[in-house]
């Protein structure tokens, strides 16, 4: 499949100020009107490469050609002027602004001192949204919108700027299957309209489904480019990691034991006073992974927070090992054997400014093991602990005393998993455990959860990744507006049926 190159990047080298050699001479060609997949492990350099293309970073050396013409971008505005737009891995939205203002920011029209013409912008935007059948509410502060909608805003932001090339850095990591489908529809439509798309993802099946070609990067170097039609997930995974990757999880059948976690008629309020979890009851047994699937924003967050003691319970009871734990604090819950891999790793699971050592004992620093005397922390022990976690989980970190923010996202996530597992819990909550994590680490983390289950621990898995839930769960509940539409065994239902439940139809009604 030969096309006309719209973008050529030649010999791109990027050395970060701290000496990190992120890109070691990368050549990348993007053809007009194609969807190019960009694959690579965490830290391979995908984001760096795209930020260079978008003018946010300057290459240490190398050249960029757009339509055959060499360009030098000083800042993103140059890139946008050349028709290149990027949707970042971590959203770049002004949280307190509404969608409209986020989108028009920087190209409000008229002079800087004249009143913003909101009405005209709204008209223009509405036309754009109608054209794509891709709606977002324009007047609500984006911080109050679900992530899926936030991402649409990000995409609209770029389309509003009339870009020809759209870079999407891990756009699906935070989306539900329905949203992914919707996104793909739009991307295909954009392609049909002649736009070019660069698509970064860790999910091989998505890449297989959407892209025309795939370029694989490893450790700052291009491993190769293949036509998607000629590729298989196994091939791509091997190119990325350099070895064979088990894409299927080995999960031996296992008889579940006693109920460990018991939730009875739980009601939880959301931040805006709405009832986020309604009268929910379920149990998680020893040696079982109980999955919760559902479109994000249907009470999962509130449910987890209530169980883990971070949010007040509005009604009902929660039991752990038969003991009433309703209203207990996270610290008490830790003592009772609960561990929690939170969904928001950068804001909740870790303190990015603190060191690996400090983060490795965060939440278990009370353990007598890490105390010299009561109240005095033994950092030597903590350091040994961190070292052990690094070795055991193969975390790549500059050292135990490096700040955690210098770890890549995947490694940050591994550190959290490692720490939580090291609590030797009887019950563990795993929320979005592999979000944004590369295949190899994903494989590792998923296998680890299964291992915990095999050891007789109870695991509550909450994930927006439907495949993950289906693959790992022994039983799963599909949540919709704070209620289970059904609690089923994954092998007993079809994906379509799960999709319907996620859309708010009860299992009984489907089976009728």
């Amino acid at each position: 499949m030969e096309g006309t190159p719209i973008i050529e990047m030649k010999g791109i080298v990027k050395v970060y100020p701290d000496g990190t050699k992120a890109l070691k001479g990368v050549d990348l060609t993007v053809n007009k009107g194609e969807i190019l997949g960009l694959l690579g492990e965490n830290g391979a350099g995908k984001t760096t490469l795209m930020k260079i293309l978008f003018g946010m970073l300057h290459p240490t050396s190398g050249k960029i050609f757009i339509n055959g013409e060499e360009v030098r971008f000083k800042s993103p505005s140059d890139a946008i002027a050349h028709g290149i737009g990027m949707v970042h891995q971590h959203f770049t939205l002004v949280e307190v602004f509404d969608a409209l203002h986020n989108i028009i920011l920087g190209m409000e029209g008229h002079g800087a001192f004249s009143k913003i013409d909101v009405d005209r912008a709204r008209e223009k935007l509405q036309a754009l949204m109608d054209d794509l059948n891709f709606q977002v509410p324009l007047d609500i502060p984006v911080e109050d919108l679900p992530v899926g909608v936030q991402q649409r805003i990000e995409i609209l932001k770029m389309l509003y700027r009339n870009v020809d090339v759209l870079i999407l850095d891990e756009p699906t990591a935070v989306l539900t299957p329905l949203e992914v489908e919707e996104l793909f529809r739009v991307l295909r439509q954009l392609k049909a309209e002649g736009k070019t798309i660069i698509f970064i993802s860790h999910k091989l099946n998505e890449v297989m489904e959407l892209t025309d070609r795939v370029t694989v990067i490893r450790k700052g170097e291009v491993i190769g480019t293949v036509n998607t039609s000629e590729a298989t997930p196994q091939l791509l995974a091997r190119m990325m990691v350099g070895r064979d990757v088990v894409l299927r999880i080995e999960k031996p059948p296992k008889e579940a034991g006693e109920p460990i976690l018991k939730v009875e008629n739980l009601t939880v309020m959301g931040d805006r006073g709405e009832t986020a979890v309604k009268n929910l009851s379920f149990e998680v047994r020893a040696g079982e992974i109980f999955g919760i699937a559902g479109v994000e924003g249907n009470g999962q967050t509130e449910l987890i927070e209530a169980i883990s003691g971070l949010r007040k319970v509005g009604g009902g009871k929660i039991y752990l090992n038969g003991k009433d734990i309703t209203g207990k604090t996270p610290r008490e819950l830790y003592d009772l054997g609960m561990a929690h891999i939170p969904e928001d790793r950068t804001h909740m699971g870790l303190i990015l400014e603190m060191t690996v050592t400090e983060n490795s004992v965060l939440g278990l620093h009370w353990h007598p093991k890490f105390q010299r005397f009561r109240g005095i922390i033994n950092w030597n022990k903590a350091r040994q602990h961190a070292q052990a976690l690094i070795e055991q989980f193969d975390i790549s970190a500059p050292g135990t005393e490096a700040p955690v923010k210098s770890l890549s996202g995947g490694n940050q996530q591994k550190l959290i998993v490692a720490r939580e597992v090291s609590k030797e819990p009887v019950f563990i909550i795993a929320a979005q455990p592999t979000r944004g994590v590369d295949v190899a680490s994903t494989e590792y983390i998923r296998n680890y959860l299964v291992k915990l289950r095999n050891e007789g621990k109870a695991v509550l898995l909450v994930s927006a990744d439907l495949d993950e839930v289906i693959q790992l769960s022994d039983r799963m509940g599909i949540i919709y507006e704070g209620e289970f539409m059904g609690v089923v065994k994954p092998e007993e239902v079809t994906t379509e049926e799960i999709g319907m439940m996620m859309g708010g139809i009860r299992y009984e009604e489907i089976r009728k």
Partner: protein
Amino acid sequence: MKRSGSDLLGTINVKPFIESLIAILVGFIIGAIVLIAFGYNPFEAYYWLFVGALGSTRGIASTLKYATPIMLTALTFAIGTRTGIFNIGAEGSFYFGAIAAVIFTNVWANMWFGLAMGMLLGALWALPAATLKVYRGVHEVISTIMLNWIGWFFVLWLIVGPYANPSDPNKTIRIPEAARLPEIGYGLSIAIIIAVIAAILTYFLLWHTTMGFGMRASGINQKAARYAGMNPKMAVMWSFLIGGLLSGLGGAMKIMGEGPTYAISQGGANIYGFGFDGIGVALVGRNHPLGIILSALFFGMLRAGTALMQAEAQVPLEIIKVIQGIIVITVAIPGLYDLVKKALHRGAAA
């Protein structure tokens, strides 16, 4: 980058201190230019400054004496910063520590009692800001600025009214001799030792205790702290209270440990301004208790040396303030260390 050995080395990064040192150097150089511009000889001025501060036992004693109160108020600010609070309430707590010392040592002439009450009242005066922050979300910049003023006038009222000295109306009643801090010599009391111990304890608290870990974690990321089973609200409370306690201690020792007066002067002249000065000290010490010890000593030195500098080189006091201002501004330049290193490399290569 593996580290071994003591805990101490593990958490102290020396680079910021070197940067502060460079800033001080740059400050002095710019200060020298200012001195030349106004017709003073900078070498002479600095010579007498250092002789005055360090050239004699007496000079060293006064350097240490000057360093004491600002060390404690700097700790207040630093604890706040380390726990995510911009606490400028040291000033108010300092007043209350001082007045507590006056009031309570005259109830029971015991040094420890006086210090304890100073700390208690200092902490108490921090309580409103802490409570308002935790329960009403009131920004500490407002509450502490307002409370400093309110405390100021309240203490002024106490010292001119109920606690004025009947036999010497220009000051309050004095600290009874039995309750004064023992003198080491040259007018220097053990206050400096207590202050240094307080700084070390603060360091220990923040970096080596469970509570301190919780405080620092809450300061950086409340959500994560809550997730980790810590109590960010209590961390904020403790930050204010311990901060207030330290400044209260500073205020009490200012009066109990410093002759010849051993009383608060009318108009609060000898208890005013230490809280504000502490902010600069904390910043130059990079908000690290051990850095603050050094930085307070440095500021103490500047103060102690001015007398001789004025007397011998006839440099006016204002110039010293200008130099101090320049040093503090220079401290704000980040990466000074790397900048200088690069420049040196280039110089060496050429």
